Each structure stands twice: as structure tokens, then as C-alpha cells.
């Protein structure tokens, strides 16, 4: 379990990082390294150069902007987990973060790193897909903002431009109404890779009917996906409408089979956890004070 040799550079600023990345085809970005270093150790990745961006100025931090919570790429997962802004404005991410790895890996792993590595079972990409966050990359040509649908291509595969890196992610804040969230996951051991995960966010109106809804499923196919459960809007959600909506939405769900779980199992559990996450989200939203 020793990585193959590589060169290590720690650029002083973003421009320098982009220049090194675009000059070396075999260069790879490292930040927290909690996904990359195991891959290096198993020699699944053999970059010639590691470009350490963890201490680049301006790439870390959490701030609230008009309608969005912006998280810098090198923000540690633990910082996001403990951030009052995340808890207040992005409850779905707050619910998902405790499922990301273990406390020691969250102490070093970054939010942007989780997105850039695009593990199909990773929780932060799932939340980004569910809420349709905007993922911002930068290379020598400038900044680029992408929707998660364009960003995530397949397992460990993203649309980050050659010679570029993820710099921030902008999660939309659902303002105004009563909001609830639900997050569920099935894995072999707590905090191990998810076979299936489900994230849901629901907004309800004064009459208790659903006014806005988002549902995402991770771990099932080669990347996280958003399911269209728009049929729930305007409804008071009960078990029957929920099952019907999820059933209809999850019909064409792509699923992979592996040693741990068959595609059929993953699809079945996805429907179940999807419904459960939505039910939790709806109940939580209803329980909130009118405001």
C-alpha cells in the first residue's frame, strides 16, 4: 500500500495552480486527500505531479449570498458540519454531512474534493444534485459555472476542464416557506460507502400542502440523480400519494450490480428510502411554526 512516486508542488495562488495544471497532463489536484490518497495507495491513480491546493488563499470559507449559500472548495467537511449558516440555510447538507466518512476523515476532507472526486455513493454530490447547486470551476481561461447534471459524468468522472479545478459550490437557499428535509442511507457499516442514499427537501404552504419538492438518489447508478416528484406539488402528502409519486419517478432508474448489492435490490431500496426521506421532510416541514 505505497503510492507510486510523484512530484509535489504547492502553488501560492490560484493562477499559479492553473498554470501548473495546464502544463502537466498528468498533474492532479490534491486538497484533503481523503478520496485521492487511498486511490494512490492502491495505485488506482498514478499522477506524475500532485498540486496541493489546500492552502490556496480565497478557496475556503462559507458565506451567505443573495439566495445562495456559497461554500469554498477547500472548506473542510467538518467546518460545514459545524457551521450555523449551513444548519440554518442548508438543512439538507447539514443532515447529510454526518454520513460523510468518519469524523477523522471529515476533519481533513473538503467539500470541493468530494464533488471533484464524484464517487457515485458520496453524500455531498447527492445534495448538490438534489438541490441543483451550481458548481464553479476555474482554469486559465477563467471561471465556469455548471449544473450538477453537466458536472457529474460517471463514476469518479466530472466535467472539470483540463487544467482546471473546482473552486466553489453554490447551493440555492429555499427562502420563505416552511421547509423540512430527510436523509436516509443504507451501507454495510455506518459511514461506509452507501449502496443507496436518498435526500429530500420539501416546502409546505399555510394550508399544509406541498409547494416545492426535491428528491435525489445516490449510490444506485454511476452518479447521483434527481427524481421528478413534481406530482406532489399542491398535495397533502400521505403514504399512498407518496408511493405513487416515487414509483412513477423511479421507474427508469439506472442501477449497477456489484458484490454488495444487485441492481434490483438497489432499485427497490431506492424507492423505499426515497419515500421515507420525503415523508420525513414533509413531517418536519409541517411541524414548523408558520412564519
Amino acid at each position: 500500500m505505497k503510492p507510486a512516486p510523484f512530484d509535489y508542488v504547492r502553488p501560492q495562488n490560484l493562477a499559479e495552480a492553473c498554470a501548473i495544471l495546464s502544463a502537466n497532463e498528468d498533474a492532479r489536484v490534491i486538497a484533503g486527500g481523503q478520496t485521492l490518497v487511498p486511490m494512490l495507495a492502491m495505485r488506482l491513480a498514478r499522477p506524475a505531479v500532485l498540486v496541493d491546493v489546500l492552502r490556496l488563499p480565497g478557496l475556503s470559507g462559507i458565506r451567505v449570498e443573495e439566495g445562495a449559500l456559497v461554500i469554498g472548495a477547500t472548506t473542510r467537511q467538518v467546518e460545514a458540519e459545524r457551521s450555523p449558516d449551513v444548519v440554518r440555510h442548508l438543512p439538507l447538507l447539514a443532515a447529510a454531512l454526518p454520513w460523510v466518512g468518519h469524523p477523522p476523515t471529515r476533519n481533513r476532507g473538503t467539500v470541493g474534493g468530494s464533488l471533484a472526486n464524484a464517487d457515485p455513493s458520496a453524500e455531498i454530490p447527492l445534495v448538490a444534485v438534489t438541490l441543483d447547486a451550481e458548481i464553479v470551476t476555474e482554469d486559465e481561461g477563467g471561471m465556469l459555472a455548471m449544473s450538477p447534471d453537466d458536472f457529474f459524468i460517471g463514476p469518479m468522472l466530472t466535467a472539470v476542464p483540463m487544467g482546471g479545478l473546482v473552486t466553489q459550490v453554490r447551493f440555492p437557499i429555499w427562502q420563505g416557506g416552511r421547509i423540512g428535509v430527510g436523509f436516509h442511507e443504507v451501507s454495510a457499516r455506518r459511514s461506509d460507502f452507501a449502496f443507496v442514499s436518498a435526500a429530500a427537501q420539501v416546502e409546505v404552504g399555510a394550508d399544509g400542502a406541498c409547494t416545492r419538492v426535491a428528491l435525489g438518489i445516490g449510490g444506485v447508478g454511476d452518479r447521483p440523480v434527481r427524481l421528478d416528484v413534481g406530482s406532489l406539488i399542491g398535495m397533502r402528502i400521505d403514504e399512498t400519494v407518496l408511493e405513487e409519486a416515487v414509483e412513477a419517478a423511479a421507474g427508469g432508474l439506472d442501477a449497477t450490480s456489484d458484490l454488495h448489492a444487485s441492481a434490483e435490490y438497489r432499485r427497490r431500496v431506492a424507492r423505499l428510502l426515497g419515500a421515507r426521506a420525503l415523508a420525513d421532510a414533509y413531517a418536519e416541514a409541517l411541524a414548523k411554526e408558520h412564519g
Partner: protein
Amino acid sequence: MKVALRINGTLREAEVEPRKTLLDTLRENFHLTGAHAGCEHGVCGACTVLVDGAPMRSCLMFAVQADGYEITTIEGLAPAPGELSVLQDAFCETHGLQCGFCTPGMILSSHALLEREGSPSRQEIVEAISGNICRCTGYGQIIEAVEFAAERLRKANAPRGSALPHVGAPGTEPSAQDDAAIEHGILEAATAHDGGPK
């Protein structure tokens, strides 16, 4: 590459390949073999060290990335040579270790928890050590060790004559403690803190 690392309060230098993990550097260059090499790819937690006080896996960090941080290994936890910290002692008391392979990681993970939370719930303890695998002791006695250490530390910090705080706090078993054991706990904790009887 040349690296200068601050380990257990001392600045130490070494010449390492970029691919050398902090774990291997601690063990081979600095002979701090308390950081154990288990899986070497981030699964077991045996290599846990504290980086600026937060537990991290030293096998998932390269030495060249580790400059500028305060690194604490298990060797840096004892108050003085030949002594044990309250938490280390609690692991002995409750039989929280058998082979000891996971123990440095378990202790550093729970040490970081006790630094920020004086009365952790059982759930918080479980969460704190959830990234550390033990293959022989079983987790029950490890959790008990952390609860016991937390209790001793609380009592050691309580002003003399005041009611003992937090007895019966979540996860502790008040009935399991008699007064003699409580006294004993205070004495030992105080001893460990003062660096020995005067």
C-alpha cells in the same frame, strides 16, 4: 524533499520522498511507532494522530503536506515519562485494550472528544471512535474507558466540597461507582495532572 514538522511540541526535520505518508515518516524517520500502520488506505484508524488537535489519519496525509500544523502522537499524550494520562489510565482500568493495536488511535480520537466535550453522551463517544476499528477487545469496554475518564476528569476539576457534578450523566452508571472508587478517581486524576505526588 525537506520537511520540518512540529511533532509533540518539538520541531523536527527530515528528508522524505513526496510519496512518503506522515505515518511512515513518524514511524521510520522519527521512531514514533505508536502510530500504527494497519490498512494504510484510510479504513482502520490505527494510524490516527492529532493535527491541530483534531484526529486525522496519518496514512492519508503525506509528510510534505504536514508542515505548519501541530502534530500530536500517542507519545505526546503522557504528562511525563513513565506516566499515563487520565484517559490512558482509564483504558487500563476498564480493560479497554487487549492486543493494543487499535489503542493509540482509539485514545487519540477520544482524547480529542474529551478536549471539547467534558460530559460526552454514549452516542457522542461512539461517533468519535466510529472511524477506529478494534478487532479484539470489543467496543463496550473502550466506550466504558472513555466514560470513566470523562468522569474522573470532571471530578478532578470539581471544587473541593462541592457536590459531585454529572453523576448519572448520560451513559454513566452511578451505581457502578462506590465512594471509595470516586475518591480513588479524584486522587489518580489529580496525580496525573500534577505530574506526580508531591
